[in-house]
């Protein structure tokens, strides 16, 4: 009888344990192949290449828990970057004012897509697909406002801006990591500790029942898209500061990495279940993979889509198999069979 119970916490705990194991495994393999892998300077520096994925996956997790999906965040990275550049260079705004404008624009983009999804009932996938076109196109148009050719990118940002990507806390830990940790804690509090987070889960589990409980489910859904767009703009800001150039096509190709991180982190693609800790671990696993593979196995970064894609497929197929009723029944029978002899022995 007790086997029937499905304590949600315990399940996600074991999944997180699995993710930690996977991470440790990565460290063991990569460091044994190439000891350079463990150098803090190198390791920390590699963060810059995948911190955007980590940041966005945090808030795309919220979107996916409501049962939606967001494939437009990657295009908002480029939009933010070019907006900062153009607003600062060509409109003469203070760099921080430019960042504020960019974040606001991103929030508006998220709100627009979120509105269509939540209030007009269009599938999230299609709207964010259209959004990825629209916002990438918008970024391109904004880049034409600049006197600089778009392929060159806008550079020459003040040091105070580049500081975001250059400052090291205690001389070792890059500031972005601190920023990421703050965002992760924020997302964790929002999702797991606040009433808002509870509403997100309820909407994802059963939107109808949430409505019957008096939850304004449409607003909850829309707000998650705003949050994910804002997180994309933060990622875009950090990336721009790190590269020192603002380009409209930053963020290209990040979509699959983000979705993989969220799904690998234990979020159900049908909504209702997921955790920030899981997503954080999964995003770091993917990041380390992207860093370690080229370093240790001389694998071109272009090939990295294969392991990530395989990872995504293996996780979803594995989950599908595990939740298949026939499989569940077979597993239960296996367990029973294992228990029966024990009883006999006693």
């Amino acid at each position, binding site marked *: 009888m007790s086997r029937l119970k499905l304590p949600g*916490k315990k399940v996600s705990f074991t999944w997180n344990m699995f993710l930690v194991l996977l991470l440790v495994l990565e460290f063991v393999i990569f460091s044994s192949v190439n000891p350079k892998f463990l150098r803090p300077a190198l390791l920390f520096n590699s963060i810059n290449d995948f911190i955007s994925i980590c940041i966005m996956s945090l808030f795309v997790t919220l979107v996916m828990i409501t049962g939606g999906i967001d494939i437009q965040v990657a295009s908002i990275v480029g939009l933010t970057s070019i907006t900062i550049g153009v607003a600062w260079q060509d409109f003469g705004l203070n760099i921080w004012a430019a960042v504020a404008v960019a974040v606001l624009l991103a929030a508006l983009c998220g709100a627009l897509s979120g509105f269509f999804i939540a209030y007009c009932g269009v599938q999230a996938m299609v709207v964010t697909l259209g959004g990825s076109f629209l916002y990438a196109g918008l970024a391109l148009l904004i880049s034409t406002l600049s006197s600089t050719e778009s392929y060159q990118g806008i550079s020459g940002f003040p040091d105070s801006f580049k500081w975001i990507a250059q400052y090291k806390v205690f001389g070792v830990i890059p500031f972005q990591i601190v920023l990421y940790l703050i965002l992760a804690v924020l997302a964790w509090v929002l999702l797991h500790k606040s009433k808002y987070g*509870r509403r997100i889960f309820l909407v994802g589990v059963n939107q109808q029942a949430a*409505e019957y409980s*008096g939850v304004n489910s449409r607003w909850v859904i829309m707000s998650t898209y705003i949050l994910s767009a804002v997180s994309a703009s933060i990622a875009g800001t950090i990336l721009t500061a790190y590269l020192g150039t603002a380009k409209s096509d930053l963020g290209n190709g990040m979509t699959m990495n983000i979705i993989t991180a969220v799904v690998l982190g234990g979020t159900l693609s049908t909504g209702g279940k997921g955790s920030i800790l899981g997503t954080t671990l999964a995003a770091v696993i993917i990041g380390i993979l992207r860093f370690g593979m080229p370093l240790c196995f001389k694998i071109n970064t272009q090939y990295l889509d294969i392991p990530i894609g395989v990872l995504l497929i293996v996780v979803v197929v594995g989950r599908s198999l595990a939740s298949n009723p026939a499989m569940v029944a077979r597993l239960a029978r296996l367990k029973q069979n294992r228990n029966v002899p024990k009883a006999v022995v006693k």
Partner: protein
Amino acid sequence: MSTEQASTSAGQLLSVQNIRKSFGLNAVLKGISLDVAPGEILALVGGNGAGKSTLMKIIMGIYTQDGGDIYIKGEHVVLNKPAQALAKGIYMVPQEPLLFPNMTVEENITIGFSQNKAELHRELVATMDEIGWHLNLTRRASSLSIAEQQLVEILRGLLRHAQILILDEPTSALTFDEVESLFKCVRDLQSKGIGIIYITHRLTEVFELATHVAIMRDGIIAVKGAVSGFTREDLVRGLLPPDMDACKDGGCPVPTAVDYTKAPVLELQNFGGYGFSGINLKIYPGEILGMAGVVGAGRTELATTIFGMDKVLGGKVLLNGRDITGLKTRAVIQAGLNYVPEDRHLNGLFKISDVACNTSSALLGDGSLGKFLLNRKKEQTLTQRYVDDFRTKITGQEQAVGSLSGGNQQKVVIARSLSTSPRVIILDEPTRGIDAAARGDVYRIIHQLRDQGVSILLISSDMEEIVELADRAVTVFQGRVNGEFKGADINQDRLMAAAFGVSEEKVASGS
């Protein structure tokens, strides 16, 4: 044994013998035997949860029975897929027609045939001529009325040379004229030797149309035979459980006297919406008002419209004298009314969430669980209080609600609605699909609530339940209140008759 059964079923088109089916621990069919002969219209009557649709799904091959046999023209058959049932000449017209809305009528009917299109068209036109209906074959299915959709479904069956046609509550969404034309078609089909199983809630239709009748109750056939051998009263009696006096032996709690001189807590004034109209009702403090009726009578639509889930078309809702007509759900809850939905799986439960999440979900709207952060301590205390009060069987507050039994799930949903301390609570079929012990617990909860002065609108298709619990009862038939009963006048015969529209009780004056 099986040869004996086969021989008894020799003259029949369809014969099912001793069909049994359980879902989990819940036995839905407990040995059903039925026969349909050519040219016979068998009316299958029964309340909700009697197992009619489960039986039909087994005959269609959508479900597989746990035990029992199906014979078609005396031949033993095994039906695992709808395709096999179709091949054997069985066709079901579901209650909600399952047409392809974006295809034309002709495409809808001819889909799945390998014959030449022109040939099919000829055959289709011939079939239509033969039974005398003329549908425009090039119209899109989405533009058809419900009656027309049902005709399309019937044509689908005929073109497949169906020998056995199952009509699942075909008149539930039809207008009066449409019902007439449907009856004409059914009689035509009957004269062609097709066997028809006609599922219905309406006893008038049984006498108008059917040659034979079978009444299902709690997974068994209570009564069956030729229609000529029955009166309406016989059928109503067949719908009632045999132990209807059991309540008196067990000792019903003495109802506390409701003070009808007080101002009503909830008042509906000429309230109308989609599926019901012109409803006038008053519910007094500490009163249990039973609302009886068959599914589709408009009771659930009435409740959800009061609750702010659907559009109000006219009239007013007053809660403690305050106008709450057309408010949003959240505002209605805060004004002091809550609702336990009829379909707890669809609208009540967060199945993969734990007990605490479910219990506290309606409290997220106000500040009682914290302003921004969620106060887990308070949530746990609250949940534990309801778990203890209701004797909900759980292994811990973190247990997923989906793994609880139906009765315990229902207790969680009721707890959710009570957590907001409502003055009025609407319970919509609160004991559907739960076992006897849990039913007793739910009744106890309802009595406790009444003692605390909460007013209850109890919507139920289970007349016994209304007799046992209600201080006053109304019946709803086709979107209107058609009867009101007080005290000793509330008995199953009267409620059943009014709910099925057999007799129209005088609405008590003054309401």
